[in-house]
């Protein structure tokens, strides 16, 4: 099986979906001839033709809106928002329209769109190339929000998202496109090559949306993470010397609540990790759910390790980014608490 990085895996997913279904098409800013600024759609125009993989005007609202119209017609558009930081102009179309069309039409019109977008920090991108806006979508009934953390899941989840009959926000943790960065930014970075989760089957397969993956079994505490933070959390468990159970949520909505509850009931302690600012981040929802469902099992307060409640800085990137030290610190607090 070939070893692919996340970019190649995502490319393979779109290619596979387009090959299997003529109703799948891809567009976005610079995604056509050039293949996208991160090269995720590289080669698709050449292979599938101009009308199936093309460039779009710089109008995120227009991209989402036309994708909705196409989906209403019967297509399955997979569009790219160049950076998640630029998704906000399309927010109204996603929240007021894509999320509600099935409901408000009594199920008659549906919007199976997939909106892919690179998100997260760690690339010295400053405040407009580093944001993690996922929680803003989890609040919206009718939308699904997913985040793969490795090449295998990236392909399988993207194929599941494209096949899904509901609108899916597909957040790609750009910091781990090329390797499972664990937050130790001054150590050499591993590439995906050779990693077992980089073994990506060539053909079609799906990773169902709504199923978490336990990345590390553990007895001491449960870590809930997604995207880059999965790798940071694994590094942190090592750093802290804690026998952590690290759960990669993979899908925020739908959430694998059973996996979470089972783990926390087992460990009695929980740390939630994300890059987005703390206040009203998805960690708040996770914390609320865990305390609602595992209250009598909890031996310590649930800890949140998150980005700060400030915009994302440039020079102080590594003081903002929740790295293994901060996660390890929270693990220790959870063990004491």
């Amino acid at each position, binding site marked *: 099986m070939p070893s692919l990085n996340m970019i190649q895996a995502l490319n393979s997913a779109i290619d596979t979906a387009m090959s299997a279904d003529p109703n799948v098409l891809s567009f976005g800013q610079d995604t056509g001839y050039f293949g996208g600024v991160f090269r995720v759609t590289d080669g698709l125009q050449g292979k599938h033709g101009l009308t199936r993989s093309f460039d779009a005007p710089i109008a995120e609202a227009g991209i989402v809106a036309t994708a909705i119209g196409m989906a209403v017609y019967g297509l399955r558009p997979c569009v790219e928002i160049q950076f998640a930081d630029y998704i906000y102009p399309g927010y109204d179309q996603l929240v007021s329209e894509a999320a509600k069309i099935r409901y408000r039409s009594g199920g008659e019109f549906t919007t199976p769109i997939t909106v892919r977008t690179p998100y997260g920090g760690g690339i010295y991108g400053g405040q407009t190339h580093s944001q993690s806006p996922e929680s803003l979508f989890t609040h919206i009934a*009718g939308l699904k929000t997913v985040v793969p953390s490795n090449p295998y899941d990236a392909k399988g989840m993207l194929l599941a998202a494209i096949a899904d009959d509901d609108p899916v926000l597909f957040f790609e943790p750009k910091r781990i496109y090329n390797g499972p960065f664990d937050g130790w930014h001054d150590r050499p970075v591993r590439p995906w090559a050779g990693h077992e989760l980089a073994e990506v089957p060539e053909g079609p397969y799906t990773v169902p949306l709504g199923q978490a993956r336990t990345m590390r079994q553990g007895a001491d505490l449960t870590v809930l993470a997604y995207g880059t933070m999965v790798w940071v959390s694994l590094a942190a468990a090592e750093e802290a010397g804690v026998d952590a159970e690290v759960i990669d949520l993979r899908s925020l909505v739908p959430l694998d609540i059973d996996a979470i509850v089972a783990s926390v009931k087992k460990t009695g302690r929980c740390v939630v990790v994300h890059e987005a600012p703390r206040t009203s981040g998805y960690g708040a929802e996770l914390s609320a759910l865990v305390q609602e469902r595992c209250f009598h099992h909890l031996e310590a307060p649930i800890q949140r390790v998150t980005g700060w409640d400030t915009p994302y800085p440039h020079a102080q990137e590594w003081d903002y980014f929740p790295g293994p030290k901060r996660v390890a610190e929270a693990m220790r607090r959870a063990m004491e608490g």
Partner: protein
Amino acid sequence: MPDGSIPPQDRPNAPKLSLHIPEPAGRPGDAPDFSALPLSPAGAAPRPAVEAAPRDTHGLAYDLIRVLDETGQAVGPWNPRLDPDHLRRGLQAMILTRAFDDRMHRAHRQGKTSFYMKCTGEEAIAIAQAMVLTREDMTFPTYRQQGILIARGYPLATMMNQIYSNASDPILGRQLPIMYSSKEFGFFTISGNLGTQYPQAVGWAMASAYKGDDRIAAAYIGDGATAEGDFHNALTFAAVYRAPVILNIVNNQWAISTFSGMAGGGLTTFAAKGIAYGLPTLRVDGNDFLAVTAATQWAEQRARSNLGATVIEFVSYRAAQHSTSDDPSRYRPADEFDNFPLGDPIARLRRHLTGLGEWDDARQAAAEADAVEQVRAAGREAEAVGTLGQSRPSVKTMFEDVYAGDDWRIREQRQEVGV
């Protein structure tokens, strides 16, 4: 590097700026004044070939395409030469739409529903268009195109069920009254959010072209809502990808209490918006059933011939209040509609048909009575199911259709309600 500019202290005589706030020609108590509305005599606007280059249509953004003259005769190059049957069906649909509006407006006053919006004075636009397009073409309407459903023969009782949010509401009481949805009738689910449907229509049309289909889309937006970013997105994408869509702007002079000048209407025409995108543009008398038909046919042919989108401004007037929540006597002259230079679309088509010898007062009276009776019969049917609050879809349905499949949160919440 030196700065080459003149600092303010060296230009003491610079004029003081002032902020300009546009105002309508009249407010309550004033006489209606439409002198700022550019008009053309019937028959005066040229009709370019359907294959014309967009730029060759741009003069039409400032003219006004009209077919019916003051005497009710059809004149000029845009005369669609419709057969009397088509005209009669159009007139009947307009009469029926007006009767429906009147009835439902009353139903709101009687507490049978929470909300209603009329399209009085604007009936010709939706109805003439619906009669040019096929039911397979998809329309993306606002709340003022109920005429499409009525022209296409959608059951009036079903419309009322929606308005009453009763147990037979096809959209299960989920939306505000008048937010109809019917895939079968080529009527896209109306959104409460202004403008959002406009670029969606472009996407739908792109999909039709992508699939090598022959269906086209038609989208509607009000004068006020043209200010939304979605309007711009729609026109950009329609132009760039040559989408087979008709982009209608219904300029009824008002957006709730705000006159069309606040959307830039006083500075140029709404049709001129199309020029910015290199799209062909038509400005049409929206109260002239024949002109609406002719312009729509022109745009439809362009779209079906792969020549892409057309922008059409329909000049009309919102004769009634914005909605049942509104009271126009607080912000505009009372008798504007009576003095609107383009008149009433029903009266004008009636006069035309009468002039042709294809209609008379008796037929008019019969059509009106028939419309009232149709509405009454539908009302009986819908009210037998129930009006707002008396009857409604089961509470369980509130938890359905959020997603295609099951969602544990919603399941648990439904169980919490015990349904």
